[in-house]
């Protein structure tokens, strides 16, 4: 395949940044999108340029590090995939492909396609845990959990924290991410003890980080590589309202 790749290049947080064109020839349809980027980078290095910075690590769709906005979609075309799981067979010979970073106020660009997502970590640090020290646990089977609740908690827990939901949302809202953690823990008896404080603190931190609010567009659910459901946002809103009304 022969392709034209238009990539966002930005030297640092204060640089203005611009789209730059690259030509690639002989790309195999079996290559992954990131392997195509590797080839492009080695081509740039051999021509004496600076390679395109992008985040990636596990390359099997689970670490949540890769984060490209491809042809106007978070993680590119295809549903239920991260950028690293996207293959060139999803494109056609002669295509022009646009590659941009996640864009959100709370995800400032570090360089090129690399953004700073530590705001997500700070949200988890504000309450996304069960307060149990190592060694303080009772026997694992002492606390039976209804299977439906356990399965729903698991589905929420599969969030990989990539930030596609924020990137794709017109409000740059992090509600899907935050609600996934709130839901996982509020569905389980272990997490119920601190449920009120958790939701209040996490929402507060989310707002302080500069994420927008939810207007129920549902784009986040569509672009989420792990299929995290919008139901979680509803559950978080319910938890939040309940906690706001009852907390002293």
């Amino acid at each position, binding site marked *: 395949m022969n392709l034209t790749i238009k990539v966002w290049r930005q030297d640092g947080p204060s640089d203005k940044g611009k789209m730059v064109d690259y030509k690639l020839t002989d790309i195999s349809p079996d290559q992954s999108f990131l392997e195509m980027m590797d080839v492009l980078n080695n081509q740039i290095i051999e021509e004496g340029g600076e390679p395109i910075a992008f985040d990636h690590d596990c390359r099997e769709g689970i670490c949540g590090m890769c984060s490209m906005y491809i042809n106007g979609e978070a993680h590119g075309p295809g549903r239920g995939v991260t950028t690293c799981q996207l*293959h060139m067979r999803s494109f056609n010979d002669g295509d022009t492909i646009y590659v941009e970073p996640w864009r959100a106020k709370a995800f400032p660009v570090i360089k090129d396609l690399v953004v700073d997502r530590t705001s997500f970590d700070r949200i988890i640090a504000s309450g996304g845990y*069960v307060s149990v020290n190592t060694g303080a646990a009772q026997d*694992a089977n002492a606390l039976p959990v209804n299977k439906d609740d356990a399965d729903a908690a698991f589905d929420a827990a599969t969030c990989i924290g990539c930030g596609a939901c924020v990137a794709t949302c017109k409000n740059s809202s992090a509600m899907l991410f935050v609600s996934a953690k709130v839901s996982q823990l509020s569905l389980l008896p272990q997490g119920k003890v601190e449920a009120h404080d958790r939701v209040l603190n996490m929402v507060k931190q989310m707002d302080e980080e500069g994420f927008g609010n939810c207007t129920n567009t549902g784009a986040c659910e569509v672009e989420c590589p792990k299929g995290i459901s919008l139901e979680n946002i509803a559950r978080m809103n319910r938890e939040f309202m309940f906690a706001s009304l009852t907390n002293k």
Partner: protein
Amino acid sequence: MSLDSKIPEGPIAEKWTNHKNNIKLVNPANKRLIDVIVIGTGLAGGSAAASLAEMGYNVKAFCFQDSPRRAHSIAAQGGINAAKNYQNDGDSTYRLFYDTVKGGDYRSREANVYRLAEVSANIIDQCVAQGVPFAREYGGLLDNRSFGGVQVSRTFYAKGQTGQQLLLGAYSAMERQIGKGKIQMYDRHEMLDLVVVDGKARGIIARNLINGEIERHSAHAVLICSGGYGNVFFLSTNAMGSNATAAWKIHQKGAHFANPCYTQIHPTCIPVSGDYQSKLTLMSESLRNDGRIWVPKKKEDVEAIRSGKLRPREIKEEDRDYYLERRYPSFGNLVPRDVASRAAKERCDAGYGVNQTGEAVFLDFASAIMRYGREAANVQGIHNPDEKTIKKLGDEVIANKYGNLFQMYEKITDDNPYETPMKIYPAVHYTMGGVWVDYNLMTSIPGCYALGEANFSDHGANRLGASALMQGLADGYFVIPYTIGDYLADDIRTGTIPTDTPEFDAAEKAVQERINHFMNNKGSKPVDHFHKRLGKIMWEKCGMARNEKGLKEAIAEIQELRKEFWADVKVPGTANSFNQELEKAGRVADFLELGELMCLDALTRAESCGGHFREESQTDEGEAMRNDKDFTYVAAWEYTGEPSAAKLHKEELKYENIELKQRSYK
């Protein structure tokens, strides 16, 4: 330097309890005066950092990724073992201990493995309390499944994402301490050297990967939890960033490196498809419960399949060679990983590989689909179902069990495994070797510890499935919190370690010089070029089968390649900015030394054991043959300047509770 494993006295079942009762403690007020550095935030590092901070130590945690949640433990699929005996099937601490020692082909330290089995049950309790959503039965209690090489169901799991859920548990415990200020988190930071003061580990030199600043960090102890070194092979199931730099740096500063040749080649991975390939993807071992592995019996069928003239399902049953079932009738497709990998290589080397490159075998679910389909039809009361109905019902059962894996396979290969057999081939997956540690997990540098895959301690020459997660969390949650106190008890009056000392100056200078070399080197080839060549040498000559001639060649070739690398590597950009090529250059420079040491270790160990197969040491039937008389030891290598000049220290392995036997899976 002598090797003292510090194994406590007494019967094996009492060693750990006695040891805990007798080692020194640090009182809560004094813990606040002590700093601990943790490198890596996977299961070992994350659990250690969280636990130590909860106890009151001041922790500084480092990871090269943008968040501690990204560490590669997250990619583990299958599960975590624990001797809970919830299934009432006769499991016990002793059985888990025995299975692990046997699975490791009798090359691990008994006392460490017993302790691992002993604390395994606590791990499950801890994780459940954190809110890890393990699979449950309808009664609300935890579910278990079975894994290769054992006869009980002791594996706890969360679908195919067990590693992710366990890591998120440890990560949330860490974030809780970060929120309290007890852990200072340094993400996008890479440790580039260890600082040793008066013979003790007292800090590190790290590079801030965003702005390139070189930073000094001091502490009373340093924990290396940086994972394994499988990426020496370039192509492996490790993450792209997984590297051995922290482990190699402490080796250069005096920590012995143990059994580097023990590499686990996992039998079920998606085969290489082209030169552009950057990594290999694992398909969980659990697939071998239902998949049958085969290649065609006839060479002409192999040709027809390769050229696309025949489809695999068109080959008649009698023309298929189910070689694992043929060679190992009692274990069949469920032989341990090392045995399954070598058998695949044997068939492919003989010319029966089923893809273009000749390096793939089939993993076929057709018979399992039909078997489950018939069962489901019976359950649903469908009498005399037609083939199509059976297939549909069978597909549903398989989708419930392995759905996410089948989907992952289809995304990568564009083949539908419900309709055509998967193609698989072995790939580098895990390294049993690592930094030598004593019973307290301390390396041969006082105050420097190694945890998880980074150390060598528990898996011998071959790791069993679902045991890596167990070891990482055991080390971090339940071993280091006790053993570190024994060392730090002497440091309560030391005070903060200053960083303006000659030792920090010298370490920083060395780091800076290496970076300057890369930036000023006007070479012609990118880092990947050298990494791929190193990987090819390692895979061909220090991979699934090794021999004396090949290993000697490999050592010479790696030395040559290393020279070429330093002279001709091209690193673009600048040192004081975000520069991923510079990061890679440093990691590959270390792989180029470690690779040579792996070959030297493999050459020295002239026996076959576990993942290490020396062609000279095999039975008439081609099975691995150990040599217990000469090689029942841990090979701990001391750095002396050049990998080839490393000095060998032997820690004799004593088996007091388990009798050494030749493994047989026939």
